[in-house]
């Protein structure tokens, strides 16, 4: 399979390229980015051919593109790729606005082109075990879920992460979507209402919120809360984590998505947690490749990405209004 990289703004692209370069069955055709300096640096570091434009890259013939541009550029990139019948694995969140996200999903659907959202946590073994246990009725009917996807401020990965236009927001945009997606999958129910409180007190110098607490009510009546705060100091031994607790009638399930970590203390770096768990990026890319190859749905579709984006955007509306808001601003047909 011929694969192209579109945008190297998101640091996850480094993990994706190492997953791709280790494979016999794919050819990384090249990379493009709107920032020529960044493009040259990245292409040189990973020994990947650089293309001056998205058009040049697609003209070289690719079947799958991995989009890691700034979030507000996702829609432009994805719509052009889809128009060229190139399948897409798009970094989360899908877009900074609902119209962009909706158009991306609609156009991919119309063209019969694969659009996958980069939600690697769907491939986490503990998440899969939790899903199977819940589906098997091990904790009975679900009452409530409390989730935390807290991390460091991602500005060290690029200033655009804390830019209200390029990222579309701060902690809420960055960290709400993963858990929303997992909760939708685990509950097999869609979110209907959102309440959120946000704060800038963790980093008052930023133009975006650094802390957020989001309560999401699902169609089946379950309420889940998400702490999406950038509450981990730069000196924290790891970037952050993803945990949630599902309260069921027959028991409680406590899930830690990143428990496979060594504690490493060195004179040089102090104490760090070093992941030794399953490479989720690799699994997600395997899945996207298989989806394109066999024309089946990826584990996380564009529509899944759209739902998660809707909740993040609803959280901003709620925080602004200090009131619960409907996830769907107006009823949509799907």
């Amino acid at each position: 399979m011929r694969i192209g990289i579109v945008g190297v703004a998101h640091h996850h692209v480094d993990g994706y390229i190492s997953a791709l370069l280790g494979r016999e069955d794919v050819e990384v055709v090249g990379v493009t980015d709107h920032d020529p300096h960044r493009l040259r640096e990245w292409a040189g570091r990973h020994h990947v051919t650089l293309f001056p434009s998205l058009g040049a890259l697609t003209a070289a013939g690719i079947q799958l593109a991995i989009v890691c541009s700034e979030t507000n550029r996702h829609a432009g990139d994805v719509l052009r790729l889809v128009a060229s019948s190139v399948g897409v694995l798009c970094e989360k969140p899908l877009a900074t606005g609902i119209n962009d996200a909706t158009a991306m999903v609609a156009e991919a659907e119309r063209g019969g082109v694969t659009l996958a959202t980069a939600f690697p946590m769907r491939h986490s073994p503990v998440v899969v075990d939790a899903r199977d246990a819940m589906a098997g009725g091990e904790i009975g009917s679900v009452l409530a879920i409390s989730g935390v996807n807290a991390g460091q401020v991602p500005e060290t990965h690029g200033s655009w992460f804390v830019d209200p236009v390029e990222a579309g927001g701060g902690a809420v945009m960055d960290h709400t979507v993963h858990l929303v997606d997992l909760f939708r999958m685990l509950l097999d129910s869609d979110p209907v209402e959102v309440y959120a409180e946000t704060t800038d007190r963790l980093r008052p110098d930023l133009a975006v919120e650094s802390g957020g607490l989001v309560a999401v009510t699902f169609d089946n009546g379950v309420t889940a809360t998400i702490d999406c705060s950038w509450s981990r100091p730069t000196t924290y031994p790891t970037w952050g984590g993803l945990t949630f607790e599902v309260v069921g009638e027959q028991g409680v399930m406590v899930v830690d998505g990143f428990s496979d970590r060594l504690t490493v203390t060195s004179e040089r770096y102090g104490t760090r947690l070093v992941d030794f768990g399953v490479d989720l990026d690799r699994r997600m890319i395997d899945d996207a490749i298989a989806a394109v190859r066999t024309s089946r749905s990826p584990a996380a579709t564009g529509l899944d990405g759209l739902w998660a984006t809707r909740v993040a955007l609803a959280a901003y509306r709620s925080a602004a209004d200090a009131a619960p808001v409907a996830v769907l601003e107006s009823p949509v047909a799907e």
Partner: protein
Amino acid sequence: MTRLEDGGPAPLRIGVVGAGNMATTHAEAWEAAGEKLVAIHAPDSLGLPRLASVYGAEPTATLCDLLSQVDVVDVCTPTDTHLGTILAAAEAGRHIVCEKPLARTVGEATRAVEACSRAGVRLLVGHVVRFFPDYSTAKATVERGEIGEVGVLRLDRCTYAPGGDNTWFADRARSGGVILDLMIHDVDYAMWVAGPVVRVFGRRLARWADDAFAILRHASGAISHLHASWAYPTGVFRTRAEISGSQGLIEFSSDRPRGLVHLAPSAGEAPPVPRPPTAGLESPYHTQIRHFSQVLRGQGEPRVDAMEALAAVAVCEAVAESASTGRPVSLDEAEAAR
């Protein structure tokens, strides 16, 4: 204070109202603090004979009888009965220690505070979490400025529903349910650390068990997430806290590695009323009562102000109201800060 022959101060004469779980705990703590349990008023309580005989205290037929024999009344009865006892004790000029929550409603709590203020007696409310060494050390760490300005708090308190003879807990009209009985600990702690609360959003998921979330907005702009549950499996009591600030983060949890781990085939029988795991040499209940005893002897100001105990009831009431209407509830900032 009268003095005994050995030169030490005479023990305070304590009258406990109630003979259940918390009365037993407080009785032990009063003794440990060197005070004297002289009377117990708990008509019809199964625990009364044992408690009275252990401490040589007189079971009194009426509250009046108890009030006539004591310096301090310790209210350890179900929440909905607090106000009546407090009013009678204040009228009699007795200092009062009252188990949390201060009262069943904001109206009752307000009357309790006003009566005690008029009578010039102490009203010391048992927000015992402030005496847990992990929680109090975290508060002191924040006060030292080590984590900068507090931005986001997470406070969890998840356990099973009280059982045995303690059926009043399940009666929301009497106990206020998981919000007023359990979440109030973390409501009080959140306000102790991050200041008054101006807006509250609550979700209560009570089907077969009572479980509640709250999102609080503090006047400072800080936000808090609280989860209190009586829906966890029998025997479980998990507490967790996370305080994040502009310069750092404090995390602690009952799940942390313990100094002593006992690996046994069975955890044994769970107590009918769940009790949070404690750390440290002294039970936090003892620390709290020792502190109250010092305050009553004129040594220092109470760690828990009665107005703060009232504010905690007010926030819990707002959480419950929000949970029932589905809308956030704004609290009068001035009132919240009183």
